[in-house]
């Protein structure tokens, strides 16, 4: 019954339904706590991308691309880069030099502390996650196009 659908077997799909949300959540946790614990935008972005790679491996590429279309990937990739640059330029405008930490530092060990650093982490994670997933998608489409030839 399940054989007609793309992707792997029913067991893998069931397990994936349980785990993919947790992986995505863990990636977001790593990004948001980048200034408190080890991790940060690069590592968290890769984990977020891996959750979508997981979806794509288990359910096939149409299912994953329905959740996160290629246009959305391109937009979030560019948005991350522009957001990172905008934070740096805002520092130039507000504080007088590039990458000035213009937001309030807050108290240490709190989630909303360290000024611009969490925002930079979010921007980098958007960029890295979308970029890696875009490369993965391009490679998959490329190999499929090659097999059809």
């Amino acid at each position, binding site marked *: 019954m399940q054989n007609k659908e793309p992707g792997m077997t029913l067991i893998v799909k069931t397990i994936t339904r349980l785990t993919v949300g947790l992986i995505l959540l863990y990636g977001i946790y790593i990004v948001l706590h*980048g*200034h*408190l*614990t*080890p*991790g*940060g935008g690069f590592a968290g972005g890769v984990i977020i991308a891996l959750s979508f790679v997981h979806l794509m491996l288990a359910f096939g590429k149409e299912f994953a691309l329905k959740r996160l279309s290629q246009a959305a990937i391109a937009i979030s*990739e560019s948005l*991350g*880069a522009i957001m*990172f*640059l905008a934070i*740096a330029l805002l520092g130039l405008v507000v504080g007088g030099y*590039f*990458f000035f*930490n213009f937001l309030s*530092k*807050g*108290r*240490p*060990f709190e989630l909303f*502390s*360290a*000024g*611009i*650093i969490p925002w*930079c*982490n979010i921007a*980098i994670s958007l*960029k*890295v996650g979308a*970029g890696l997933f*875009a*490369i993965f998608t*391009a*490679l998959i*489409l*490329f190999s499929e*196009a*090659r097999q*059809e*030839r």
Partner: protein
Amino acid sequence: MELQVLLLFMIFAAVVAVEIEDLLSSVIAVGAVGLGLSLAFLILKAPDLAITQLVVEILCLIILIRATIKKDLVLVKDGRWLFNTVSTLVFICFFLVLAYFALKELPHFGQPIMRVAKEYIAYGLQETGATNIVTSVILNFRAYDTLGEVTVLFTAVIGVLAVMRKIGRINAK
């Protein structure tokens, strides 16, 4: 003063590299730009960057020469082997002596000069408010590095998509 002369030389070499017809001369002009940059790092008191720049520049020069003009590379095989061997040995000794004086200035193994790092460790939390010191260095003290990394990644993604999607689109028709 030396820095301005060096910058003028580098600009001149870059213009030569773009304008000249011969590929080998162009590659050598690019190498001259890199060596000028290495000397500029040395003048600006950054010896570690100068060494890195020199090594990378030589590697890039070799790769560029092998990649661009592997066909018409002139190799002298016969005759003058004594002159060639002696001159090679002389140049190796010359560079070894220079490397001895250059490497003597580096800190000894296991005794790093922690002047900059000490500042980061002492004032990291106070200046940035981040308790993860690596993040405070990456995204606050050395954010330029991160900006460069992000730019490199962005360029790499665009390059992969440009190369891969062309084939996908032709097949989709």
